């Protein structure tokens, strides 16, 4: 599962300007904007909530999948992650990874 996601992520990153990449990028921005309400602008958090802007795409994907499967300890993310599908997870992970490269 993880390999498939990483593959689709890699493909999406390699094909800028294609329809798929555009949709994925737009979805990533929309999701990241929602994340900002707790994790801070551009995922830069102050205080106890973890920052997201230093994570690789793979780190974010692994974390969100684990929250969704409830195999990782957590609080609200155990619920929020259940609201994300595979495409959402790839999109938002890709978005935060681009912030890291900045």
């Amino acid at each position, binding site marked *: 599962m993880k390999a498939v996601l990483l593959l689709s992520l890699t493909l999406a990153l390699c094909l800028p300007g294609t329809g798929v990449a555009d949709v994925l990028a*737009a*979805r990533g921005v*929309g*999701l990241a*904007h*929602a994340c*900002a*309400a*707790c*994790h*801070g*602008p551009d995922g830069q*958090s*102050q*205080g*106890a*909530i973890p920052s997201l802007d230093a994570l690789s795409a793979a780190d974010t994907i692994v974390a969100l999948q684990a929250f969704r499967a409830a195999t990782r300890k957590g*609080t*609200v993310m155990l*619920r*929020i*992650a*259940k*609201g*994300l599908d595979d495409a959402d997870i790839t999109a938002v992970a890709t978005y935060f990874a681009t912030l890291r490269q900045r």
Partner: protein
Amino acid sequence: MVLTRRQVLSLVGSLSLTVAGARPTWTQTAGRVVVVGGGFGGVTCAKYLRRADATLDVTLVESHRQFVTCPFSNAVLVGLRDLASVTHGYETLRQRHGVRVVHATATALDPTARRVTLDNGSTLAYDRLVLAPGIELQWGAIEGYDAAASEAFPHAWLAGPQTLLLRRQLEAMEDGGLVVISAPDNPYRCPPGPYERASLIAHYLKTNKPRSKLLLLDAKDTFTKQELFRTAWQRLYPGLLEWVPGSQSGRVVRVNTSAGTVHTAFDEHKPAVANIIPPQRAAAIARTAGLDDGKGWCRVQARTFESTVHAGIHLIGDAIIASPMPKSAFSANTQAKVCAAAIVALLRGAQVPEPVLMNTCYSLVAPDYGISIAGVYRVADDKITAVEGSEGVSPLDAPDETRALEAAYAQSWYTNITADVFS
């Protein structure tokens, strides 16, 4: 020359206006958006509109020079924070994000001419209008409870001077006094708010005035996070905090501030401090032009947050019914972002993006004891629905470390969301 859909529409509009002679042909701009209301919804929307398209002409209308947040005002109430820590200004919105901020009150709308009238006598023309005016309190819904009565029995449901008034009353009260809180029927701003407030006041009393008692009179028989709150109350505030549901004469129907009494159908209470949270409805400007269908709250199209009554007017935040999303700062913030993205797309004649809607609400039951509710929402058939499994509250059997962690997250959430909105 190939014309875009928007250019064609604009051309057609100009021609018909010229023919009718109603007003001169307008000059084409990137788009004028007026946002009414400088709270979580309005400020977020104005900021994200300009972030998405810096050529947009965005004006925010807000009467107050500063915004005092309702989130964490319960902490101010009991001395855990000061008012300055929950007060935010509009300078960054103006200077960094290029939003024109007008300190005035919007008094009337013309949905056809697309104009807003302000109380300073000026009018603002718009291509798209966003109303995020929040709530107003329904004076008189509880007999005897009006603006004058709220000086004796504060509501503290619009944060600011009322918060400080209730705080002073709690501080002045002698040990052994009775505090009464009256909670309204649904829907109202911040569903868990009355219960967080009762919790933190109980914490204050337990710490400072332990012989006192808190009576939470409720118009309802059930409330959000009920099992979590009641389990915590039993453990933390036994004998101090008593919740009275509506079916057991909990509904406050009348107050008499000169006699100092609070009345339910069968009981009369004479508290030392009374906090009356009255029924609410959408603020006045959202109820003009029939935007609320006469029902007190406004309905919107779920993908764009555009009014179901008038085209070109969008509504977000506490003034709308967006159930199952609650009336919370987080909901207003996430709705504002969806609304901003939709407006940018609509002005360009582009496809409206798929909405991303979420909510998380933390409540403090004690300074180191936090609980939460969260949900992720999708739009299908113009309805907002919670994604299965995503909507829910903290577990009932969580250990103390989890409660402490959620309390720390609550503080961090406040810092981060206010940075998202006001920086």
